[in-house]
Structures are given as C-alpha cells and as structure tokens.
C-alpha cells in the first residue's frame, strides 16, 4: 500500500459542504411532492456524516442534489456550497467541472453503476477525459492503476482491461470508490454503498471508506438506513424524516441519548445481535418440548443441482446438507448470496428437484416425488416470498389473493366461509378488513408483507417457509412484521424455516440457526450457542462482520475483527 498522506489540511476552516435551507419539490401527476424541506447541514474536511432515515425521508434526494443530479421535474431552492461553489442553479460546464473533481458519488448497486459493455479503464478514463480533454490513454491507464491499487484491487495493471461482470460485487464497489479517488474528489457522497453487499463484504467496504478518509482526508456523506453501518463508520449523524433533519449529533451522543422520539423508535427497532435471542426467551420446559418434538422436515445429505448449459456440468447449489426442523420450531437459515439458502427453501416446498440424499417433508420423501403427491403436501406448507412488490398478481384484490389457496385446496368452502376466513386472517395480521377490496399497489411494502403472511397462513399450514420476508422493508416496518411473525408462530405453533442473510434478524426469531456457506451447512445450533461460541471460522467472521447499532461496542468489535482477520494496512 502506498504511504499514507494525511491530508486534513490545516488551512481555512471552511467546510467542504454547507447546505443551507435546501428545499426540493417534485412536480408529479398527483401534484407537488415536497421531498426535502429546509435542510441545513455541514460537512467538515475529513468528516463522515451519516444521513439516516427510512424510505421517502428525503435522504437520497438531498444526497443527489449535492451533485446536481436531480431529475428535470425537481425544483430546488436554498444553497449547497461545495468548497465555496453553489450547486443550486448551477448547470452546463460549470456543474460538470464540479462533478467528479470536487464531489463524487458512490451508488447503491455497484453492478448497475458500472457500464456492462465497457472495460474498467475506459470507464475510469471517461471522468478523467471530461476534466482534461488532452489526457492520453497512457496517462489514463496509469491513473486508473494507481487508484485501483489504492482501493485494494489485486493485479490492477492486468485487470483494468476487464469488464464489470468479471469482478465480484465488493470489487465493483471498490472500483466505484477508485473512480472517485482518481478524480481527486474531496467529498464522496455514498448512497447506501453497502446495502447490496453481503455482510462480510460490507465490513471490508466500510473499512476501505474509513481508510480513504484517514489517508486522503476525504469527507464522506453516507446515506444509509442501516444503524449498524452508522455506528461503525460515522462521526456525525443526521436523522431525516419527511424531508426534514429532525436531529443531528455526534455519533456516540446520538446513540447514547437520542433527543427525538422518532430517533429513539428508530434505534429501538434495530435488531441487535445477541440481545433478545428467541431461544433464550423460551421457558426450559418449552425448550425441552421442542427438543423432543417430531421432525417436520428432515434432510440427510441433501444435494440440489441446477442443470448446466449444453455440455457443461450441472451447478451444485446444495452439497450434502443435513438438517431437521421439528414441529413448532423456527429454524433460521443464514447465508450470503449464492449460499443455497433459497434453494433449500424451494426444495422443501417442492419447487425444486433434489439430486441426491434424502429430504422428508411432513412424512413424504421428496426425492423423485411425483407432482400429484406434492400437491396435497402444498396445502400444508405456506410460503412467504422476499419481495412483496412482485409476489402478488396485480390484477387480484387483496381478498382474492388471500382466498386463492382456499379456492385451490379447499373447494368445499362456500364463498361466505371464504370471506369470513379472509377477514379473520386480515385481522390476525393486523390489517383492517376493508383492505379486502384493495389492490396490491395500493398497499405499502410492510402491509403487503402482512398480506403475504396472511396468504401463507390461510390453509393453517404445519410448516411455513419465509424467504427473506423483511429484507425489502424499512427497519421500523421490519420490526413490526417480525413481531407479528413471532406472535402468530406462538399462537398457531407452526414450524417455520426462516431464511435470511441477516444474523441479527434470524436470532430474534429462530430457535435454531444453521449457517450455510456455498451449499454446505457449516454450523448449526441454538441461537445463543452459535452466536456466543461459534465453531466454524466462517461463522466467526460472519458474526464479527455484522456491525451492531452501538458505536462504542462497534468500535470494540472492529478492533477485535482487525485482530482476528487482519486489518487493512
């Protein structure tokens, strides 16, 4: 690594960014939307400011207006001073000069923020060329290599000729950061930079951002909804709600003594790893009862393969997994993207063929099972999908969606009985009965996921499979949906497979946790056992990578992480 150049310049104390009384309105078909309402913020050189809030709070709009990246329908007023230049009202060449050179942006989804059809060096060169038309190809490549080295891309001289799809998600995000560095931006706006990444990769990107700040004195605005990320990285936090900054404080102060009710609620809604473990909340008698209950799902040496392209070997997504879910038990399956957790869930629901081993679901062997034997099984299994936005037929009302399984599996029910059942379930998921006649698009994400749950439970299943049911939701909404899930599970006593990438979420719900790594179950046990005494190095890394929403504790964890897995630099 190159030598650190502490660049927090001791010069004039002018902030890198001063937003004053920013107002952004959007003209939409439904009238004007006031997205940002009188926001004032400053960011000092070398400061990391986290702007937190839930979806629709105006945090992303604020961030984008710093680069003048608002759509044409937006109207901004107030002032945004980036190293002395006002961005509001700036256009054309002067705005372009500012973009990249003074302030640069890192996007949420690194896969779509890089152009798939151009090599990396070319894309890095576009920014450089925009600021210096006379720059030669040789100079561009030299700068690109330098920047990629600084963000820890191995073998940059060879890899600048590669295309984005040849890099992993974390590497793509590193490349995005390198692009900001190559242009010499002193302010980086990072819009949810780690949301799309796995937790172990997230830890590395957060470390990189901190490292960039330390070495180059770069100021960072971090837009995020993840309180753990805030606790890990931020110096100062601004909490946004409905377009306003409602609270702004140094990070430790904010977490220790939040002044606003909303901030307190927000913090309380964040699941904290190791607190409130579902297994620990059970009475010893309940624990014992679970230990001896009959298994509902039993997998032994389960293998699931996806056929390869013509003439290529099949892809083995699940490689010999042993697991069992007992009646009344919630089994949490944790793993990163591509670990095979969704595949296992689908196989249990009979949506995926097994290629080896054995999988018994509710007494039926799924290996080589015939479709007509799966059907009676399906009415005993409920399924909740990840994305509430796409798992509903947009042409059916909520009532019809919930009643659909009844139509398929319980034909002897009269229309009136069906309606009664639908209303009963809507009540169970805490939605007004009048929602029966609404369409999915009229509901919020959280409400849709409640309907999803109602639909999964309508047949009174013995087993519920929930695949990342809350990962598309805001934290406070997630908390209420998880509470609902917990309550319904206790009341109805169904067994559940809860699939998630978030260990903290899983721990609050699942009695037993299994950790998947590339199709293999590397660890399983009761929540507290797995979290407090992880046996497998991967589990240890997973736990250590997950930032907790407490800056003091997180700083300690970060040091422990550095000790255990080696710090960068």
């Amino acid at each position: 690594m190159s030598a650190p150049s502490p660049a927090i310049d001791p010069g004039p104390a002018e902030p890198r960014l001063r937003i004053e009384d920013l107002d952004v309105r959007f003209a939409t078909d439904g009238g004007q939307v006031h997205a940002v309402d009188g926001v004032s913020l400053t960011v000092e050189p070398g400061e990391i400011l986290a702007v937190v809030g839930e979806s629709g709070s105006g945090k992303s709009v604020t961030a984008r207006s710093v680069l003048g990246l608002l759509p044409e329908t937006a109207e901004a007023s107030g002032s945004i001073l980036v190293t002395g230049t006002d961005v509001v009202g700036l256009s054309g060449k002067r705005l372009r000069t500012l973009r990249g050179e003074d302030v640069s942006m890192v996007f949420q989804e690194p896969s779509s923020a890089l152009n798939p059809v151009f090599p990396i060096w070319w894309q890095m060169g576009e920014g450089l060329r925009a600021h210096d038309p006379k720059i030669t190809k040789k100079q561009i490549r030299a700068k690109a290599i330098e920047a990629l080295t600084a963000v820890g891309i191995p073998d940059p001289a060879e890899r600048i000729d590669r295309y984005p799809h040849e890099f992993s998600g974390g590497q793509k995000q590193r490349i995005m950061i390198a692009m900001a560095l190559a242009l010499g931006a002193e302010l980086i706006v990072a819009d949810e930079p780690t949301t799309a990444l796995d937790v172990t990769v997230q830890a590395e990107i957060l470390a990189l951002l901190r490292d960039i700040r330390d070495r180059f004195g770069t100021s960072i605005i971090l837009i995020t909804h993840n309180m753990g990320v805030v606790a890990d990285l931020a110096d100062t936090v601004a909490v946004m709600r409905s377009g306003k900054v409602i609270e702004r404080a140094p990070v430790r102060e904010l977490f220790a003594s939040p002044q606003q009710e909303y901030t307190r609620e927000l913090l309380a809604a964040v699941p904290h790893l190791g607190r409130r473990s579902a297994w620990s909340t059970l009475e010893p008698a309940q624990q014992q009862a679970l230990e001896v209950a009959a298994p509902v799902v039993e997998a032994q040496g389960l293998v699931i393969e996806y056929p390869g392209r013509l003439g290529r070997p099949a892809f083995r997504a699940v490689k010999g997994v042993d697991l069992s879910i007992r009646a009344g038990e919630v089994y949490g399956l944790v793993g990163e993207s591509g670990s095979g957790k969704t595949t296992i869930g689908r196989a249990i629901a009979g949506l995926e063929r097994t290629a080896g081993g054995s999988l018994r679901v509710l007494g039926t062997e799924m290996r080589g099972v015939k479709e007509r034997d799966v059907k009676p099984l399906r009415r005993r299994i409920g399924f909740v999908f990840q994305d509430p936005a796409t798992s509903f037929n947009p042409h059916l009302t909520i009532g019809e969606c919930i009643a659909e399984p009844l139509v398929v599996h319980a034909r002897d029910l009269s229309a009136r009985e069906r309606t009664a059942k639908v209303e009963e379930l809507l009540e169970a998921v805490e939605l007004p009965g009048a929602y029966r006649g609404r369409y999915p698009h009229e509901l919020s994400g959280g409400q849709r996921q409640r309907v999803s749950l109602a639909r999964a439970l309508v047949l009174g299943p013995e087993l519920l499979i929930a695949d990342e049911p809350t990962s598309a939701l805001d934290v406070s909404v997630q908390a209420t949906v998880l509470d609902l899930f917990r309550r319904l599970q206790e009341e109805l006593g169904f067994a559940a497979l809860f699939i998630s990438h978030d260990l903290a979420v899983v721990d609050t719900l699942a009695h037993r946790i299994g950790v998947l790594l590339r199709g293999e179950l590397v660890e399983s046990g009761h929540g507290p056992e797995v979290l407090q005494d992880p046996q497998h190095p991967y589990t240890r890394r997973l736990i250590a990578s997950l930032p907790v929403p407490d800056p003091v504790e997180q700083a300690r964890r970060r040091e422990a992480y550095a000790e255990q897995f080696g710090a960068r630099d």
Partner: protein
Amino acid sequence: MSPDRSSGPDPEGATTQVAAPSGEDAPSTPARREKRTGGGLGRYILVRFLLIIPTVFILMTVVFFLMRITGDPITAALGGRLTPDQLAERRAEAGYDRPLFIQYLDYLGGVLRGDFGTTYSDRQPVSRILLEYGGATAELVLYGVIVALLIGVPLGMIAARVRDRWGDLALRVFAILGYATPVFFVGLLLKLVFSVGLGWLPVAGRISTRGELTMGTILNPSPFYLLDALRLGDLSLLWDVLSHAILPAIALGLLTGGIFLRLVRTNMIGTLEMPYVDSARSRGVAEGRLTTRHALRPALIPIITVMGMQIAMMLGGAVLTETTFEWNGLGFMLAEYMAARDYVAVQGIVMMLAVIVAVSNFVVDVIAALIDPRVRY
C-alpha cells in the same frame, strides 16, 4: 437428526468473495487482453459458425418434404397437359417413382456436390440461378440494412433524448408510417417522384444496359455488381450501380428503419435511466457523450438480436421490392418460377433464402458478442 455444530470443510479463502489487497507490487507489464478475450471470442464464433450446418440441414429437409406433400415436380408442372401414361413415363425417367426417402438421399447427395437439380420451365441449373440472383438479393438486403440503420439509430437516439416532446412524437409517427406503409406503395411513390417526376434516378433494374455491357467484359464476374464495379475502378459504372440501388434500398430500409427507430428509442430510454449513466454523469461526463457512448452501446444489445429476426422479415420485403423495381433477385425469380409451377426452382430458392437468414443470424451473433462482453464464453 441433523448433527448440531457440524463443522464444514476448509473455509480458508472461502470466507470472502473479495480478494484481500495483496501486499506485493502490482505487475507493471501491460495487460495481454487480446489473448485472453480473443480465445473466448474465437471459440464462440467457431461454435456459432458450426451451428449453421445443422440449421441449414434441418431447413433443407423440411423444405424438401413440404414441397413433396403436394406431389412431384413433374406432375405439378405438366399435370393437366399430359396423359397419365405419359406422365408416369416422365416421372420414371426423372426417378420420381422411387421411394421418397431414396429421392431425399439422392437430393442430399446432389446438394453436397453443389447440384441442386435443373429447373423444368427453362432447363437451367438451379445452382446458377441461386448464385446469380442470390447475390442480387443479398446486395439489396445489405443496402436495406444500411439504410435502416442510418434511419433507425440516429433518429431513435434523438427521439429518446427529446422523449415525450413534439420532436419525439413526430419521429414516432414517422416510424409507424415507415413500417405500416406497404413496401410496393413506398416503392411506387419513390419511383413516381424521383424517377418519373424529377428524373434523377433510374426507374428499375440493377444496372443500365450500357453498364451491363461493360460488366460483361469482366473476368470471373461475381454475383455482386457493387464488387465488380469497384474491381473495374470505373466511377461512372459505380454510380450506375449505386443509382439503381438507391430507391429500392430506401423502400426496403424504411420498413425496417421504422422498427429500428422504435427499438432504439425504447432501449435508449431504458439505458439513459440506468445508474451507470448517472454514475458517469456524476463524474462530469457531458450529456452528449452520455447519449452517444454510455447509453447507446448497451441499448444496442437487445436491438442486434432483433435485427437478426428482422433480416428474415426483410427478405419477405425484398420479394416485393424486387418485383416493384424489377430487381433481378431471388424474390423476383421466386415469383416467376411459382407462376410457372417449377417446384425444383422454388425448392432451391426457398433453401437459399433460408441459408441467407442462417448466415445473417450468425453475423448478428458475432456482432452481439463484439458489443457485449458478457456473451463471450
């Protein structure tokens, strides 16, 4: 029972997808990219090329049997004019009384030797017709594609850029008119204005009579007039060939150009909204360049695939264009031989059209691979 606290295999290096930064110095040698992607691309092109063979074989088989469902070529051509006895004699002579499968093998054998049979109506070897007129059609389709691209890509880009304003609206109406107006109507209109009215361009044909005479002096003439004109280096001859091509190319190109325009517009609107365009914008790249470079190339990927299919449509359009402009190509001849009920000729021509489609799809696949690095595997 599942074994609790099981321990998996060696997790080293498996714990993260992102390679840790290496402590070593980066190698300073320039990258050898050509070698790396070249291998993948070369393999891809080879595989695609070899796939033409089974495609053509299947097409040939299907065409052969479809043509025979209605009977043999002799009955078709001479059916009402000979007595049944005479007919049977002629059929036996030509071998059409043998089992169909044997005839099929015989036909295949002939094709492998480059012998597609002889036409009934004018006793020409089919292979000669294919070569001569196939070249004319390929030339026309090529011009048509060029015109379609010249119309569709820039205008589609402009429409996407000024989306939902009146310029966009006008271009969209133009596009609809382009592909909704029948080719022969556009052709007649063009002829009326530019040939008959203004007298700028020739009315019909591929070349003037004088040009044809000059062409006749060339040794080993190719089926492509443009190529031969270039080889002779005769500028007036070149203009002769090109001026004959302009109106048919526009008539045919408008049809597909309208479709390209809509496709480019839709896809560009999609890519202009992609985060990577915003990402480049956030680094100071100018709007014009965002449109012409950053958004255009990814937008072309789906278009190129559709283009392959469009070429098949264009061949259909070429039949009409050729008839309108008396362009002596396969379409023109196909109409003639159909009228003469000459099945041997028709079978050969249909096959040739299929081969043109298969080959142009191959070319399209190669272009797609050149544009989209993810295709190369």
